[in-house]
C-alpha cells in the first residue's frame, strides 16, 4: 500500500516508522458524520498535501492530529504516542486536558486566520509558549524567536503589533510562532486561503524552505502548484473518506478515480 517514499535529502524513509499514523478515524458532529474511517501514514520528512472540497473532512482530520477535535472512533498516533488517550489494558482511557496540552507541543499548527495574539508584539507572541509551556528562560526564548523570525524573513518587525502587518506577514509570523516550539510535525490548515493573491507567494516560499529543510508537514490547501512542486504525497478526500493517495504526478496529473479528476479539473 505504501509506495517507496523518500525524504527531501533522498534517503528512503518508507522503512522508518511513520511519524503520524491515522488509524480508522471517524468523527461525527451530532448526527453528521464528517470522517468515515480514514487511514493515513506520514513518514519523517514527508510533505503530505491534502486536497478536497469544503466539507470533505480534510480540516477535521488535520485537527484530530493535535486533538483539537476529539475522534468519535479510531486513533491518531504521533511520534509513537497515542494522541489524547492512554493505553490501559485493552482500553483507551481519555487523558486529562493538561496531559493532552503537553502532547500538543509535538505538533505545530498554522491556521487559515493566522490567529496571532493581538495584544502582544510579534516577539512576545513567539516567546509566550516556550516560556510558559516549556519553561525556557527569557533570553534563550528571545534568541530562538529571533532565529525563527529570520527564517521567515520577519526579524525586522519583532517589536510591532500584529495589526500593523499585512496578511502574508502575519501568517509568516504565525509559522515562526509554531516553529519556535520545535515540533516534530507541522500542520497547515489552508494557510493561504485568506490571503490576497499577491501575498500567497511569500507564505508558500517559507513553506517550501521549511519542506526542504526536512520538516514533516501535513498541508490542507488548494494551491496545486505547491502540491506539484513540494509534496511527496498528495491525498484526495471526499465526503469523509480518503479517495486517492499517491505522488503528485499521479493524483494531480493522472488521477485514477473519477471524483479526483473532477475535483482537479474544477480548481485548475
Amino acid at each position, binding site marked *: 500500500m505504501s509506495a517507496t517514499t523518500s525524504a527531501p535529502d533522498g534517503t528512503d524513509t518508507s522503512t522508518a516508522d511513520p511519524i503520524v499514523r491515522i488509524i480508522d478515524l471517524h468523527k461525527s458532529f451530532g448526527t453528521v458524520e464528517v470522517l468515515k474511517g480514514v487511514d493515513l501514514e506520514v513518514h519523517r520528512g514527508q510533505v503530505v498535501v491534502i486536497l478536497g472540497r469544503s466539507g470533505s473532512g480534510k480540516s477535521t482530520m488535520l485537527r484530530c492530529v*493535535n486533538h*483539537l477535535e476529539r475522534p468519535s472512533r479510531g486513533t491518531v498516533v504521533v511520534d509513537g504516542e497515542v494522541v489524547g488517550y492512554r493505553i490501559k489494558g485493552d482500553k483507551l482511557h481519555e487523558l486529562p*486536558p*493538561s496531559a493532552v*496540552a*503537553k502532547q*500538543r*507541543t509535538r*505538533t*505545530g*499548527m498554522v*491556521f487559515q*486566520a493566522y*490567529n*496571532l*495574539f*493581538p*495584544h*502582544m*508584539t510579534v516577539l512576545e507572541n513567539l516567546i*509566550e*509558549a516556550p516560556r*510558559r*509551556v*516549556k519553561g525556557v528562560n527569557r533570553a534563550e526564548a528571545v534568541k530562538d524567536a529571533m532565529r525563527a523570525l529570520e527564517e521567515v524573513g520577519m526579524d525586522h518587525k519583532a517589536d510591532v*503589533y*500584529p*495589526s500593523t502587518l499585512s496578511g502574508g506577514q502575519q501568517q509568516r509570523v*504565525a509559522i515562526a*510562532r*509554531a516553529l519556535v*516550539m520545535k515540533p516534530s510535525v507541522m500542520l497547515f490548515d489552508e494557510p493561504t486561503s485568506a490571503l490576497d493573491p499577491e501575498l500567497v507567494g511569500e507564505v508558500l516560499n517559507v513553506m517550501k524552505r521549511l519542506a526542504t529543510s526536512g520538516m514533516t508537514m501535513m498541508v490542507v490547501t488548494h494551491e496545486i502548484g505547491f502540491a506539484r512542486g513540494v509534496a511527496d504525497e498528495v491525498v484526495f478526500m471526499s465526503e469523509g473518506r480518503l479517495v486517492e493517495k499517491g505522488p503528485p504526478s499521479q493524483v494531480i496529473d493522472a488521477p485514477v478515480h473519477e471524483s479526483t479528476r473532477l475535483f482537479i479539473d474544477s480548481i485548475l
Partner: protein
Amino acid sequence: MKAATVTDSTRVAPSATPPSELVPLRHPGRRLAALLVLLVAANLGYSVMTNDNFEWPVVREYLFHPEIMAGLRTTLILTASSMTLGITLGIILAACRMSENRVLSSLSGAYLWFFRGTPLLVQLIFWFNLSALYPRLTLSVPFGGPEIAGAATNGVLNLWAVAIIGLTLNESAYMAEIVRGGLLSVPRHQSEAAIALGMNRWLTFRRVVLPQALRVIVPPTGNQVIGMLKHSSLVSIIALADLLYSAQLIYSQNFRTIPLLVVISLWYLVCTTVLSYAQSHIERHYGRGVHVGGQRPGGLAKLRSLGSRLAQRSRSNDNPTPA
C-alpha cells in the same frame, strides 16, 4: 472650451467644462445653534451662581467640614474595597458560569439570579440582621450535626463587614455578566491558537483570553465603579456614616438641606471626574495593539492642537503670503 454660462445649477453643457475652484459647504446654522446653547448654559450657570436660595456661603462652610471629610473617606473606602472584591468574585463567577461543569455553571447561575433579583437595600438589611437568623456562625457536620468551630455572629460582623459583604456580593453578580460578555467577545480561534501551541486552559485564559476580554470589560466596569460610588450611600440604612449620611446628619440638625446636598453632589462629581480620567487611561492600556474607532485623542491633546492651530493662524495673519 466654453465655460459654463448658466449659474446656480448642476447641469453642464456637453462641450463645456465646469469651473475648477471648489467652495466647501458652510454651516451657518451650526454656528448659530452652538452660540445659542452656550448662551443658555452660561445663563444657567449665572443664575445658579447668583441664586441666594442655594446658600452658597453655607456650601463653602461645609465643603471641607470634618464630618463631611470622614463621610467622603468612608464612601471611598467602601467603593474601593467592594469593587475590588466584587470584580474578583465576578471573574470567578463568570468562569464558573462558562464552565463545562454543569454543577458549577448552575450554582453560578443561581447566585446571579438571587443577587440580581433582590434589591441591594434588602440585602444590606438582611446582612445587618443576620444574627437574628443565625445567632452563631459555625463550621459543623452537615444537616444539623455537632459544631466543630464557631463564633457569635454579632462578634464577627461589625458595621463595616456588613456593608462590604453586602455591597461586594451584590456587585459581583453584575460584574459576572460584564466579565462573561467580555470573555464571549474574544474570538474562539484565539484560544484555539493558544491550545495548539500546547498551553493549558488556565494559561490560555490568563494570558490570551482575559487580557483581550478586558478591553471590552473596562468601559462597563468603569460605569459600575462610578455607580457604586452612589449605591454605597445605601449603607445609611445600617447607620454607617458615608458621605450622604453624614450630610443627612448635619442637615437634620441645622435644616440647611439644599446647601449640604450641593456639598456632597460636588464631592461626588469630583470623584466621578477622577474615576473617568483613570478609566480612559486603563482603556488605553488594554486597547494597545488594536486599531478601532471610538478612541480619539483626549481632551488635553485637543486643547494643544487647538492652541497650535490658533498660533499658526495668527502667524499667517502677521505675515501675509505674497500674491
